C-alpha cells in the first residue's frame, strides 16, 4: 500500500499564541500493522490510527483534543507517553525526541509526563492498597527514600485530591468511581510531573462528579503549574477547561484554535457539523434548530480516503479534495484549519 497521505510536516512553531512551546509534535504517525501467520508473520494491512499530525503544546495551557470514537485521539496520548512505538515523526519534549530514546533513557522523562485514564475501575490495580499505589512511584524513582516521609507525602497527595488520608489502607473496590478517579489523579501527581495527559479523564463519571473532578483538575493546574492535554469527546467539558482546542478526524487534525474562537467561529466543515450536533439545553431554541447531519459513515482507518480524509462526507468538497491533501494552514493568527474551501 503506497502512502498517499502527504501531510503538512515541519510546521513552524505556533508563534501566534503566547507562552513557550513545551512539547512539539511533528508529523506523528502511528500505523498498527495487522498481521497474519503464527510463526512467520506477514503484515496484511495497516490501521492508520494517527496519520501525520503536528501541533505544539504551550507551557501552562490546557489543549483540548476532541473527535469522535476511533479518530485516534487516545493514540496520540499513548504515543506521547511512549506506550506505543510510533511509526514515524517526532515528539520533542525538553529538547529530546522521545521517539528516539530507549526505555531506560525514558525513565527520567516519565517523571515529567503522566496520565489520567478514562475508566476509574480499570486504571487502578485491584490487588494494591491505595497507599501503596501512591508510594510505589516515589519509591521506584527514588524521589523520597525515607519511608515515613513518603507516607507523609502520600497522605498529602490524597488530601490535595480531596480524599481522606484514611483511604490509604483501602483497596480500589472499596471506593466509588469518583473516589477512584481522584486516586488516579493523585497517582499521576505522585512524581510531581509538569505535564498530564487526561485521556477522557471525566467521561466515565456522573455529571455531578464530572464537575467536581474538572474543578479539581483546574485547581491542580494552578497549584502545581501543570500543562494538560485534555482528550475528550464531550465538547462542553472541553470548552470549559481548554485554552485551545484541536479537532481530530480519522487520524488527522482538521482544526486548531483558541477555545472561544473555535466554538464561536468554526471553519472546518467537520468542526461545524460536530458543534452543530451539540444539543442546546433549551427546548424552545432546540425545536427551531436545524441539525445538519453529516452524510455517510466514518471510513475505515485501514483504508482512508485519498486526498482530504473528510472529502467523501464533506458538503463543501470539490474535485481537488479527492486528490490533494489540504495544508494545515493558518487562517487567522493561531487558527489553523486543514481545508482549502473555507
Amino acid at each position, binding site marked *: 500500500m503506497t502512502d498517499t497521505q502527504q501531510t503538512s510536516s515541519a510546521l513552524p512553531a505556533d508563534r501566534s499564541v503566547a507562552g513557550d512551546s513545551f512539547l512539539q509534535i511533528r508529523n506523528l504517525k502511528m500505523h498498527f500493522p495487522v498481521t497474519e501467520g*503464527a*510463526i512467520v508473520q506477514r503484515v496484511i494491512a495497516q490501521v492508520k490510527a494517527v496519520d501525520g499530525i503536528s501541533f505544539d503544546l504551550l507551557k501552562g495551557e490546557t489543549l483540548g483534543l476532541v473527535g469522535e470514537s476511533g479518530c485516534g485521539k487516545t493514540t496520540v496520548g*499513548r504515543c506521547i*507517553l511512549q*506506550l506505543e512505538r510510533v511509526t514515524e515523526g517526532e515528539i520533542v519534549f525538553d529538547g529530546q525526541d522521545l521517539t528516539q530514546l530507549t526505555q531506560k533513557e*525514558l*525513565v527520567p522523562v*516519565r*517523571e515529567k*509526563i*503522566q*496520565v489520567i*485514564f*478514562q*475508566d476509574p475501575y*480499570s*486504571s*487502578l*490495580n*485491584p*490487588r*494494591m492498597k491505595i497507599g501503596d499505589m501512591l508510594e*510505589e*512511584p516515589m519509591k*521506584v*524513582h527514588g524521589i523520597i527514600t525515607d519511608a515515613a516521609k513518603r507516607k507523609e507525602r502520600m497522605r498529602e497527595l490524597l488530601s490535595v485530591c*480531596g*480524599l*481522606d488520608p484514611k*483511604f490509604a489502607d483501602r483497596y480500589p473496590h*472499596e*471506593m*466509588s468511581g*469518583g*473516589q477512584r478517579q481522584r486516586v*488516579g489523579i493523585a*497517582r499521576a501527581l*505522585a*512524581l510531581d510531573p509538569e505535564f498530564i495527559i487526561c485521556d477522557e479523564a471525566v467521561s466515565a463519571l456522573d455529571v455531578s*462528579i464530572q464537575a*467536581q473532578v474538572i474543578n*479539581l483538575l483546574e485547581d491542580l493546574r494552578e497549584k502545581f503549574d501543570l500543562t494538560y492535554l485534555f482528550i475528550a469527546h464531550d465538547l462542553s467539558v472541553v470548552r470549559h477547561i481548554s485554552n485551545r482546542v484541536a479537532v481530530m478526524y480519522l487520524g488527522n487534525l482538521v482544526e486548531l484554535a483558541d477555545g472561544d474562537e473555535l466554538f464561536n467561529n468554526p471553519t472546518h466543515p467537520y468542526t461545524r457539523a460536530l458543534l452543530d450536533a451539540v444539543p442546546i439545553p433549551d427546548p424552545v431554541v432546540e425545536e427551531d434548530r436545524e441539525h445538519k447531519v453529516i452524510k455517510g459513515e466514518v471510513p475505515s482507518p485501514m483504508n482512508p480516503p485519498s486526498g482530504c480524509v473528510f472529502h467523501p462526507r464533506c458538503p463543501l468538497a470539490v474535485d481537488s479534495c479527492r486528490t490533494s491533501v489540504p495544508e494545515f494552514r493558518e487562517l487567522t493568527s493561531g487558527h489553523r484549519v486543514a481545508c482549502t474551501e473555507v
Partner: protein
Amino acid sequence: MAAIDQTIDIGDLQKPWYARLFEMVRHQPLGSAGALVVLLMVLATIFANFISPYDPEAASWKHQLSPPDANFWLGTDAFGRDILTRIIFGARTALFVGFTAAFVGATSGLVLGVASAYFGGRFDIIVQRLVDIVMAFPLIVLALAVVATLGAGTVNVIIAITIPFIPQCARVVRSSALAIREIPYVDAARALGFGHFRIIMRHMVPNVMAPYLIMLTTFVGQAILLEASLSYLGMGVQEPTPAWGLMLQGGAEEFAESAPWVPIFPGLAITLAVFGFNLFGDALRDVLDPRLRSR
C-alpha cells in the same frame, strides 16, 4: 472538596465463620467433600507419626499377609507391614511429591505465562511454540522419559512431574495475562516508568491468581496420580518408602486373589485423593473464575 462517602457494606464477610462454612457446604457440596479429603490428607501428613498404629517400615514375619482384623484394620502386606500405617505415611509421600511438583510447575508456568503475554512479539511466539512441543507429549510419556534419563528416586520423580506442568500452566495463565496486559493499570505502571520485573510481579501476577490457584489444585491431584503411576511402574519412589503406587504394585501382581486387601486399600486411597483434589479444584474454579468453567 467533595465529602467522603461512608464505608461500603462488606456484607458477607461479616457473618460468623460457621455461617459462612454452612453456606459454602450448601452451595458447593461436592467441593466441600473434596476440601474434606484434602484436609484429611494434610492432617494425615502432619500427624502421621501420632495417628498411625505401627512403624511403616517395620516388617513382622509373624503377621505376613494377615487379613483385616482388630489389630491390623486394613491387613498387612507380604512383609507383615501394617497397610493402614503405610497408607497414612503414603499420604505424606503423595502430598509431598504432589504439592512440590504442582507448586514448582504451576509457579514457573505462572511467571513464564505472564512474561510471555507481557513482552509479546517474538518472545511470546518462541515461548508458545516451545509450550506446544512439550504439550504434544502425553503426560505419562514425558514423565517416564524424564525419569528414564535421570533415574528413579523421589527427587527425580518430582522433576519429572514438574516439567509437563510448566507449559500447561503457562498456556492458561498467558490467556488471562493477555487480557490483563490491555487493562489501563498496566499502562499506568509503564507510564510511571516501572521496570519489566516490577510490572510483571507486582501488577500482573497478583491479578492472574485465580487461574493459577485452580491449576495448582488440579495439578496436585494429577501429580499424585502420576507419582503413583511411576511408582507402580517401578520408575518412581523406591522401597521401602511408603508410597501408594508402590503398595499397589506389590499387591496387584501376586496377591490380587489370595490377599485382595493388599492392592485394594492403596488403590482406594489414590482414587479418593485424586477425586478429592479434583472436586476441590473444580469448586475453586467455580468460585474464583466462572469463565473457565467450559474449559
